[in-house]
């Protein structure tokens, strides 16, 4: 192949291109690099937009976009607009790893993933990248493994378990319980914490039934429930479709609100779950870290999400919305977008009001211990009370 010599203008063009590449390669560091005052601040979002948890991902992403819109309408943060850079995790561990890799270290902070099993898959990557990550998983150990970058604006399963037991055992006096839980990281851990709390509060476990996510038929499990001696049922079922099928079949096979006290963990009252289960969840109690009518901030968030995205606010949307709000507040407090400054500012936030309730971060990165009790009436969660819980020291269970 013959090579042609490059003269004059050609050499200049190559030189300009090279200089341009050199300049654009600068300023991609997350902590430094010259950014103009108006450079948008990137918030990374790892959400399941396809796959088994895609219903959650849609709500989370839209809620984050709502928060960004509202913050930018007030002038942004440090005079700079925010934007969300989202990557689909495909609701798989491999997808989450790929998503984190794709986002790199340019975001000021990350939001997601929201499943405990997925978070475990990327924990070491987050630690090595040194970037604040607001996680939605409630597995208590996630913030107690020596990773300072894991931040959580949701109560842990310890708090939910304490609230569940307080409602069912202490308040309603039901002593014997069946537990149905998905066999994923969340379901197994949450059930273990509840069962430990049950012992503490004087209750007994009649049956522990593990279900695989995506189960098509729960007849066998419901047969076990009907034949057990338990008067109470607690469920930790992750997916909306599973919650819908389980609730429908439970009622069809004769287990009613009057025959058994059913308290469902918070995934059951996500908006997709409520839509699928319909009236079959009426009379069911639940614990949640978000209820639209619990506080004025919660009500405002619900109204804004409905108006802007025609979505019903739920726990997943509230978590993601609040995460963006907290990130914005932390950047303002720190006066900087450096990862360590933002993290330190988050931990310094006290009584920060948001849709889920006031947050106060501890040294482990856990910020929320507010749990609400709701009863489902006409297919919607109705606020009953806020559970006043003391600070619960972390213990490993199961």
């Amino acid at each position, binding site marked *: 192949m013959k090579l042609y010599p490059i003269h004059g203008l050609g050499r200049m063009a190559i030189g300009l291109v090279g200089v341009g590449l050199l300049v654009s390669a600068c300023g991609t560091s997350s902590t430094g690099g010259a950014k103009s005052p108006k450079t948008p601040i990137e918030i990374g979002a790892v959400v399941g937009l396809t*796959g088994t948890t*895609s219903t959650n991902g849609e709500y989370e992403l839209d809620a984050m976009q709502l928060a960004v819109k509202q913050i930018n309408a007030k002038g942004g943060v440090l005079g700079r607009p925010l934007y969300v850079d989202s990557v689909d995790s495909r609701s798989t561990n491999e997808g989450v790893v790929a998503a984190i890799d794709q986002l790199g270290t340019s975001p000021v902070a990350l939001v997601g993933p929201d499943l405990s099993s997925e978070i475990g898959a990327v924990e070491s990557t987050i630690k090595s990248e040194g970037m604040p990550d607001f996680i939605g998983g409630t597995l208590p150990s996630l913030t107690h493994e020596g990773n300072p970058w894991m931040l959580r604006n949701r109560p842990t399963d310890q708090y939910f378990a304490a609230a569940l037991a307080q409602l069912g055992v202490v308040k309603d006096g039901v002593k014997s319980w069946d537990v149905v839980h998905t066999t994923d990281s969340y379901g197994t851990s949450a059930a273990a914490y509840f069962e430990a709390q049950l012992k503490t509060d004087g209750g007994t476990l009649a049956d522990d039934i593990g279900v695989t996510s995506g189960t*098509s038929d729960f*007849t*066998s499990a419901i*047969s076990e429930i009907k034949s057990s001696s338990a008067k109470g049922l607690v469920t930790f079922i992750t997916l909306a*479709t599973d919650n*819908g099928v389980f609730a429908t079949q439970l009622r069809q096979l004769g287990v009613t609100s009057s025959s058994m006290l059913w308290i469902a963990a918070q995934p059951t009252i996500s908006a997709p779950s409520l839509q699928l289960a319909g009236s079959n969840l009426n009379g069911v109690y639940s614990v949640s870290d978000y209820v639209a009518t619990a506080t004025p901030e919660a009500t405002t968030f619900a109204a804004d999400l409905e108006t802007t995205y025609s979505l019903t606010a739920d726990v997943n949307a509230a978590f993601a919305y609040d995460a963006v709000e907290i990130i914005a507040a932390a950047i303002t407090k720190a006066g900087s977008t450096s990862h360590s400054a933002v993290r330190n500012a988050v931990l310094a936030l006290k009584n920060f009001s948001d849709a889920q309730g006031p947050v106060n971060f501890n040294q482990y990165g856990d910020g929320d211990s507010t749990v609400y009790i709701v009863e489902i009436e006409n297919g919607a969660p109705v606020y009953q009370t806020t559970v006043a819980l003391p600070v619960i020291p972390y213990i490993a269970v199961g």
Partner: protein
Amino acid sequence: MSEVGQLLVAGIAIGSVYALVALGFVLIYRATNVVNFAQGDLAMLGAYALLVTLTVFHLPFWLAGLVSLGVMAVVGILFGLGLYYPLRNRGFMPIIVATIGASVLFENGIVAGFGASPHVVTGMFGTGSFHIGSVFVNDQYALLVGILVVVTAFQFWFFEGTLLGKKMQAVSQDKQMALLLGIPVGLMIVITFSYSTALAGLAGVLVSPVLFVSAGLGSGITMNAFAATVIGGFGDVTGAIVGGLVLGLVDTFGGAYISFTYEQGFGMAVVILFLLFRPQGLFGERVAEKA
């Protein structure tokens, strides 16, 4: 006794779903020697076709179901022509990989078009049910089992009693000979794809009022339907139906009397046992190869 009856009803109902999808597996395999790993997702597409006809065109369930079957038959033709036909001379592996790719494409395409949220559709009889003694029977499941019986009878008549059916059988048994006899092999294969896809769509239509319409509906069905064909005998139509029912009953009774946590594993354990000790399945023929 009522518990056994309830489990029997549940096992037969869910097994019927597997059987309908497995039938499609078998028909395509017999015609092309290829396993279509997108079969479950074709059921999912059938469910979404039903959703559109119910919610956009406001058709009654029975008419919406028939229209959805028609749509799926056309989808099957396009599927056969677009995926199988270009790869038909490249061996089985590229086609299998292409069906897996199609499965991913269908799921993501549905999410892109309809969003991720599952949808509720009302069945043929609303939320009706009846009891046989103390055993609860969901009307929709009863319809599903009834239609499986009808499909089985139709299939028997079609393949044994019509010229078109016999031509399709001839193609599945020996393509070269069928070609020599003047049977349009390509056309028979396209018709097979169309019919199998319609069968998968029928499963999706019938099960969607119970399991909801969602992009993930098919993935749960595919592996179980595949397992049903292994149990019944790969390539055997009767085997696909019996295999589906056996799988549904094994899963349900295993879940109730051993452990619900491992319910989905019992059927797979049975599959492994069959592969070890009776690889031809219940109704398949053992084929020996000469050294």
